[in-house]
């Protein structure tokens, strides 16, 4: 299954793009980007989802549905980079010369869902290499034929994804041999997910509730030169399919806010806004992850609060980066022991090491 169009088209003439944008009233700004400086085949290799040319470039029905104001389950705008003044988004990455965008969009979504649903500033950097060169490769996928988000999320749910330092990403097909064998003790898993393609209300609800979702769309040549504004396809041929992470939306501007994986030298520091109903962004394949758990040692941190109430083994600690997390509660005396150790560290203003697994603390170092 090819991931791009059968014949790689000639590069888009940028003068034609400027004229087309002018004719369209200047909906967005074009410019020189890290992508526009590449050869056309270098650009299309980064489009790692089989294109869906049957989808309309401009879907007026979806545009109308998305801009309807009767959505009562989601706010009218949301941006994960500024939720009450807090940025829960993780860093923009660069997939390089490989059709691994599905792994990047999926990892970004998992990182953001974990951080936002737990309201935590805990750093989380997951291994796109593990997703793509292990899980996708096991399904016969590679840099040349790409993958699908629902397959990536299935692997992330059933097998898990290692932290990035256990298999750092480099672009180019490779086997799984560089994966650290200890990865079962340093990974993240999706608790559940759902394919919600075409359901605009659920897309907004999922983004505003869980922080991010995955989405794919058809990439036309003009997109490579996007700098800022709300993207609408104005000219150029279909180049391929692409997967990204949606981190917000804005009904007033009529657009989704997306994080791309082409580095910070493309687009608006690596991000872009795309109009509702554009290029199949809602219908191509959209997936919502409804929770992410990690199993790993957290960064050492201080305990800023401790809490309990009238229930047995219901003790929580507030870590300076993790926020509130429950102490292991299988046996009451276990959580009591953890409380004693954490209370000592708190009294001394000393750091603690916390091992988190499935939303609770399983092991502690109290220095």
């Amino acid at each position, binding site marked *: 299954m090819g991931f791009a169009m059968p014949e790689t088209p000639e590069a888009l003439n940028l003068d034609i793009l400027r004229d087309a944008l002018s004719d369209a009233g200047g909906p967005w700004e074009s410019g020189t980007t890290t992508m526009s400086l590449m050869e056309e085949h270098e650009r299309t290799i980064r489009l790692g989802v089989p294109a869906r040319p049957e989808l309309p470039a401009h879907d007026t029905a979806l545009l109308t549905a998305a801009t309807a104001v009767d959505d009562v389950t989601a706010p009218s705008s949301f941006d994960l980079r500024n939720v009450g003044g807090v940025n829960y988004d993780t860093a923009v990455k660069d997939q390089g010369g490989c059709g691994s965008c599905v792994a990047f969009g999926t990892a970004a979504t998992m990182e953001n869902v974990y951080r936002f*649903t*737990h309201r935590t*500033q805990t*750093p989380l950097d997951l291994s796109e290499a593990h997703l793509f060169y292990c899980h996708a490769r096991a399904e016969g996928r590679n840099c040349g034929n790409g993958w699908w988000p629902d397959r990536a999320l299935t692997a992330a749910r059933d097998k898990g994804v290692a932290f990035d*330092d256990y298999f750092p990403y480099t672009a180019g097909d490779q086997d799984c041999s560089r994966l650290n064998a200890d990865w079962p*003790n340093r990974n993240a898993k999706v608790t559940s997910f759902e394919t919600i393609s075409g359901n605009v209300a659920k897309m907004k609800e999922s983004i505003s509730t869980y922080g991010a979702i995955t989405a794919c769309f058809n990439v036309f040549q003009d997109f490579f030169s996007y700098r800022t504004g709300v993207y609408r396809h104005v000219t150029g041929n279909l180049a391929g399919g692409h997967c990204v992470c949606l981190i917000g939306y804005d009904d007033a501007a009529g657009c989704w806010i997306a994080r791309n994986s082409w580095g910070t030298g493309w687009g608006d520091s690596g991000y872009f806004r795309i109009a509702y109903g554009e290029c199949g962004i809602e219908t191509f394949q959209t997936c919502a992850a409804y*929770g992410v758990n990690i199993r*790993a*040692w*957290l*960064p*050492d*941190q*201080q305990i*800023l*609060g*401790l*809490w*309990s*109430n*009238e*229930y*047995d*083994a*219901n*003790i*929580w600690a*507030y870590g*300076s*980066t993790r926020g*509130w997390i*429950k102490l292991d509660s299988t046996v*009451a*005396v276990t*959580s*009591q022991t953890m*409380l*004693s150790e954490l*209370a000592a560290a*708190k*009294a*001394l*203003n*000393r*750091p603690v*090491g*916390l*091992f988190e697994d499935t*939303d609770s603390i399983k*092991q502690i*170092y109290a*220095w």
Partner: protein
Amino acid sequence: MMSNNKGTPILQPPTTESSIDISIPGTSAPSDEQIAALVVESAPLAGPTMAPPAAAALAEEAVTGTWQNNVKIDALWCIDETRNAWMRVVGVGWKKIYNGRDGAFTALVTLASQARQTGHAVNIREEPDGMIYEIYLW
């Protein structure tokens, strides 16, 4: 997600300042060098710098008790009877600690004792039976 049927803490600590380098991951078997790098000089915790959590936030919790925020504990008492311990709240007086379950009782006593030892502020929930059912230790 933090929800469960036993209740969860909902307030934020008065300060979120940290002197820990969060870029250094915890390890299951830290080396001496890592320990040395991670351990910070002991410094007194800053006193509460924020106003007590808003009553509106407390109202989100489905409990009926009365909250007293940012109070201190200056004495403790217990006797050789099952689950019978009290704490003295500055400006309020003696309050009995919830005695319905061993695990909860022990945890609450630990929090009260730590508050007494460190002089840190607490938020406490008192129910109509006069006992303290919930403690935030900051």
